């Protein structure tokens, strides 16, 4: 472990002080968790929130949890080399298996069959979760993954394109106070909604993608707010804060083929599944294409990419527009399914949530984005009414935040990291380069790249 020769005494005392500090951190964390999950204070006794959780026997449970975590993390540090070789073994096995095309395609086929068959066995509550919470967000996460993961652009206004897709559905189906020349079924609005989102993405992207990192984040944040405020206040066009009802369901009428989506969840699920599969296949080939290599270069170092002959702005706009179109389609589908759209659905918090899904899953990794979205969207639904682990809906983001913090400490590359991302973190551990989420540059003079 000690690459530099340090004499035994100082090394062991160094370790001991680290252990003590780690113990302090875990105990403090456990106490904070106790307060977070404990009773609230009231106006008559404002300190009840603290006394009720810290002076109550239940605090002992949290302290025990903290101590166990401390013991685990200490053991992990002590046996770092062994842990490393073990995880490397797992990784090698995984790469060997996934490297074999037959195994990989077989796995995909099995997963697809499961994705088709399993939902039919679920009750309607879980079918609805599968569409509204999981399916839509998997699509959103996979789209944002192109922007954040492939191109390294921090987009905090991603949900604005979702809104544009949703309002496109409302407009072209005639649900808005302003009417189009001809009405369309949402199914045929798909290209129009995607087009609208792409146009919005390009209009926003061309001037702002010249900016880097932090600046882009601020601009997209502002754009997201503008869209949601316009949707709220421009009542004569958008129906205002209470939203718009009566967006029709999807239906397809081709000469002899008629199909109408309705209140039932499964047909929407299969439609979503179809699109997710198409998008996954498309993005996988994008990743391995010339465009994918250009995006990787931009993510690593924009100046070097430009000097290598990559048209940086063009590819950034492309990535941004691809993300926007995915988001726009998800918005259209969701609006049509619940036949309702309201500005309250398009909050910054939602943009952040999608970013959390992508980060949790593993930035730049397609399976990671799918897995991250599926796990994080499923878990709250499952745990909400659990007898022991149940929680209040308004506390959700506290737990997500805590989860992300823990994640960043123990597995910053996400649950299913991309190969490239794993490399970055391995490099950062060696002290070479940076492993910042966004910055690719190892040169501080490059600014917030």
């Amino acid at each position, binding site marked *: 472990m000690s690459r530099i020769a340090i004499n035994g005494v100082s090394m062991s005392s160094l370790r001991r002080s680290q252990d003590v500090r780690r113990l302090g951190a875990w105990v403090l964390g456990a106490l904070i968790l106790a307060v977070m999950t404990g009773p609230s204070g009231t106006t008559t006794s404002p300190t009840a929130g603290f006394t009720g959780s810290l002076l109550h026997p239940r605090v002992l449970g949290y302290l025990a949890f903290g101590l166990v975590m401390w013991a685990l993390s200490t053991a992990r540090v002590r046996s770092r080399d062994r842990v490393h070789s073990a995880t490397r073994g797992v990784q090698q096995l995984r790469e060997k298996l996934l490297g074999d095309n037959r195994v990989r395609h077989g796995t995909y086929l099995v997963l697809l069959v499961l994705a088709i068959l399993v939902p039919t066995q679920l009750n309607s509550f879980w079918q609805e979760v599968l569409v509204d919470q999981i399916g839509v967000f998997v699509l959103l996460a996979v789209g944002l993954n192109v922007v954040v993961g492939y191109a390294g652009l921090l987009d905090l206004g991603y949900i604005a394109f979702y809104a544009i897709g949703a309002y496109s559905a409302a407009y072209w189906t005639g649900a808005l106070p302003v009417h189009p020349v001809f009405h369309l079924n949402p199914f045929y609005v798909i290209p129009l909604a995607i087009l609208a989102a792409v146009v919005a993405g390009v209009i926003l992207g061309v001037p702002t993608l010249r900016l880097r990192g932090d600046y882009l984040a601020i601009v997209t944040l502002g754009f997201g707010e503008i869209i949601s405020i316009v949707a709220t206040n421009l009542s004569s066009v958008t129906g205002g804060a209470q939203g718009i009802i009566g967006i029709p369901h999807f239906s397809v009428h081709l000469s002899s083929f008629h199909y109408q989506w309705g209140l039932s969840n499964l047909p929407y699920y299969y439609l979503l599944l179809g699109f997710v599969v198409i998008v996954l296949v498309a993005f996988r080939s994008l990743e391995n294409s010339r465009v994918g290599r250009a995006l990787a*270069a931009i993510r690593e*170092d924009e100046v070097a*990419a430009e*000097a290598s002959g990559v048209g940086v702005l063009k590819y950034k706009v492309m990535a941004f527009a691809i993300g926007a179109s995915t988001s726009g389609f998800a918005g259209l589908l969701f609006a049509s399914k619940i036949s309702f759209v309201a500005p309250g659905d398009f909050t910054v918090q939602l943009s952040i949530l999608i970013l959390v899904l992508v980060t949790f899953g593993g930035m730049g990794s397609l399976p990671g984005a799918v897995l991250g979205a599926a796990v994080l969207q499923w878990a709250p639904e499952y745990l909400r009414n659990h007898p022991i682990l149940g929680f209040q809906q308004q506390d959700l983001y506290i737990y997500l935040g805590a989860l992300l913090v823990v994640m960043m400490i123990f597995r910053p590359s996400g649950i299913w990291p991309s190969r490239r991302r794993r490399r970055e973190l391995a490099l950062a551990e060696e002290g070479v380069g940076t492993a910042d989420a966004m910055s690719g540059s190892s040169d501080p003079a490059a600014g917030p790249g």
Partner: protein
Amino acid sequence: MSLLALQAVEVSYGSIRALKAVSLEVQEGEIVTLLGANGAGKTTTLRTISGLLVPRPGKVIFDGADIQGVAPHEIVGLGIGHVPEGRRIFPRMTVVENLEMGAYRRRGNLGPDLDRVFGLFPVLLERRKQLGGTLSGGEQQMLAIGRALMGQPRVLLLDEPSMGLAPLIVAQIFGIIKEIRQSGTTVLLVEQNAAQALSVADRGYVLETGEIVMSDRAEVLLHDDRVRAAYLGEGAA
């Protein structure tokens, strides 16, 4: 006719004029060096040639055509390779991936070009599967030069290749710069290390606060009292 020429180029950062009527020429097959202290405008000159900055007024002529307003990545395609200041290799790509990125604007077989780069820099062949970020400073500089060569440039712009490197490595890199010229690539070399630069260059220009104050054959500059005093660390005679 010169391969590359700047004609009365002025570049400003806001109200600060970084280049004042800079004119210079590079003939095909030459090594030309641009000397100057920090802030003299050397990097600005290179960035103007590669299209990252736009001269107002002034012209950049490459191979007889005005390339003002052409986007930087297209200028690379025209045959101007830029090795940026501070190397800027892709730290998380392997050596081979870095080199392949250098040939981004070309299609077809990269084998001969890879062989050429590995011939110039055998150490890169040894490290071909290693990540760029794990290379030493000298190796990164070699990789940056190799990457630019992968684009088959007619003229190579080198921005301070000696920066932060050990003298032994610097000597090695300057040796390779000569080899690159022998293989037919013209070189415009920006340097603070005047002694090394003038020892390999055919001609040199001296830039001071945005103006060209001297230009001559390299061995003349090398023996010029003012150059010796200002850039070679010798007291004025």
